């Protein structure tokens, strides 16, 4: 059986201030190694603790683009159709430190309706925190609703 994508939410039905989706994402060393392979970003600070510490980091850190991918995913999961995403932007404000254990780091990602623009466009504000600290700044998306 084929899973189908759900349809894009309607512009008329969304309200400013509403949180559209929120989730916790567990990030382990395994996830970083897998992301390194899938993305082609093999920077050693994302998998080698010895080198991460030698350049002044507290431990191995997640790829910034892995964290941004989680920001994108929360938006496209809400949209259903990734084609409704027009813009996605973030600032990387703090590293996500990923310890060498089974728990890893927990990233809490959420998105809310920040502004209704003209012509069916909506601006979403995205929040990403780890250990109660924000790791992305000015994270937002512009989406085209039905």
């Amino acid at each position, binding site marked *: 059986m*084929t*899973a*189908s*994508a759900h349809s894009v939410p309607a512009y008329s039905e969304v309200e400013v201030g509403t949180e559209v989706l929120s989730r916790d*994402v567990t990030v382990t060393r395994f*996830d970083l190694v*897998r*992301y390194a*392979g*899938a*993305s*082609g*970003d093999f920077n050693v600070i994302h998998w080698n603790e010895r080198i991460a510490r030698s*350049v002044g980091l507290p431990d191995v850190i997640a790829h*910034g*683009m*892995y964290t*941004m*991918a*989680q920001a*994108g*995913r929360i*938006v*496209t*999961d809400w949209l*259903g*159709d*990734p*084609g409704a*995403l*027009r*813009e*996605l*932007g*973030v*600032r*990387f404000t703090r590293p996500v430190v990923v310890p060498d254990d089974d728990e890893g780091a927990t990233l809490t990602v959420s998105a809310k309706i920040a502004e209704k623009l003209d012509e069916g466009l909506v601006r979403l504000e995205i929040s990403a925190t780890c250990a109660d600290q924000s790791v992305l700044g000015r994270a937002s998306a512009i989406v085209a609703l039905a």
Partner: protein
Amino acid sequence: MALNPEFIGRTYPASPSYVVGREKVREFATAIGDDNPVSHDVEAAASLGYPDVVAPPTFAFVLTHSSMGQAMFDPDLGLDYSRVVHGEQRFSYSRPIVAGDELTVRAMIEGIRAVAGNDMLTLRAEVVDSAGELVVTTHSVVVARGSAEEG
């Protein structure tokens, strides 16, 4: 060391074409935990009108970061790569990337400025399909930490 301001506006030659593979899209989606059926299942993608599986939005960076390297590693620019961190990233989409796309990337240096002893370099990369249509534009700010911040 301050970056060479003459590099503002410099455009680099288009990259060799990158053919987006169906399994690469699935692999990337799986790596970020994205289980949206349109990134895995051709029929689910077809139900939304796409010719093949749809890449998650940040997949574009897989193509653009090597092209931006052309600019960042240009020796005359004066960027010390060991001090570089990714400061900002933005994508503007005309359409999503789908498996089967044959894409090229054109990178340019959009801006160079010094802020609080750090050098900030703004790079733009345009991803274009085989018909010459713009698919996605990426804006990246990389920050080379100044020696004042060391320690």
